[in-house]
């Protein structure tokens, strides 16, 4: 435990360069995806085992804060995927390690080129959903009641 606190403190203080940043980003994105994935998998299994809970949860996932969380997971998956491929290539081709700094920059560039338009698109989807509800006198800031999905009870 003390070594974890030490790592977090020193990771933030350490003036490492691209390799250090990539290592932290890979680790943090991996944990973020895993946290979401475990919830997502058990939730999705409910589509069969407990449909009412599943139907409620997909409605709840449109709540703006959850939808923004989805955007964060999108960023994490894209970065982690491209950086993971970079790690794999360099592991099998250690001779190419002299390019490690440039490869880290290329991964960030590919990530940004893909993620920025996707983020704008997804964010406007959230705004669109909220303004559509607002036009009908409703709000996206309300958590849907579980009883709204009673017809799915098995």
């Amino acid at each position: 435990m003390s070594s974890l606190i030490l790592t977090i403190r020193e990771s933030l203080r350490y003036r490492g360069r691209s390799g250090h940043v990539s290592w932290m980003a890979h680790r943090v994105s991996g944990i973020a995806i895993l946290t979401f994935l475990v919830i997502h998998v058990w939730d999705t299994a409910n589509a069969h085992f407990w449909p009412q809970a599943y139907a409620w949860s997909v409605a709840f996932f449109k709540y703006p804060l959850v939808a923004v969380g989805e955007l964060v997971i999108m960023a994490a998956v894209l970065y982690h995927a491209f950086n993971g491929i970079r790690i794999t290539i360099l592991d099998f081709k250690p001779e190419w390690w002299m390019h490690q700094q440039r490869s880290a920059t290329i991964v960030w560039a590919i990530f940004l080129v893909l993620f920025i338009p996707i983020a704008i698109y997804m964010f406007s989807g959230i705004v669109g959903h909220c303004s559509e509800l607002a036009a009908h006198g409703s709000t996206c800031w309300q958590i849907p009641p579980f009883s709204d999905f009673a017809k799915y009870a098995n």
Partner: protein
Amino acid sequence: MAAATSSQKITVRKFQVHSNFERFAYLFMRMSGVGLLILAVGHMLIQHVLNSSANLTIEFVAAQWNSWGWKVYDILLLWLAIPHGINGLRNILEDYIHNPTTVKLINRLLALFVVATVIWATIGMALFDASKFQ
């Protein structure tokens, strides 16, 4: 054991990892990573960009899981992503926890969690009856 070769300024050391499981886990992280590049990134782009999550309902899921192609896609994704993610978590935990008894206990719990999650979710997807939601 270690043979060193030098190419320009890079020193390459090759060595054999002793435990077969650790060697397998190392290779699995990289091989599943390649699979996940297609399956996980594909899943994110298909579900959240091509289909907007704003109109996601259980009926929409049922329309997709009406075909075995999508069921198999999602089951494969599950089989790669859960072991990859939990093994990654194990790697991280082992960096910070050094008590061998605690490490052993955590490893057993994580292994149990992988098996339980994969079996439960595979059954859920395989048995999901799309006709109930149409």
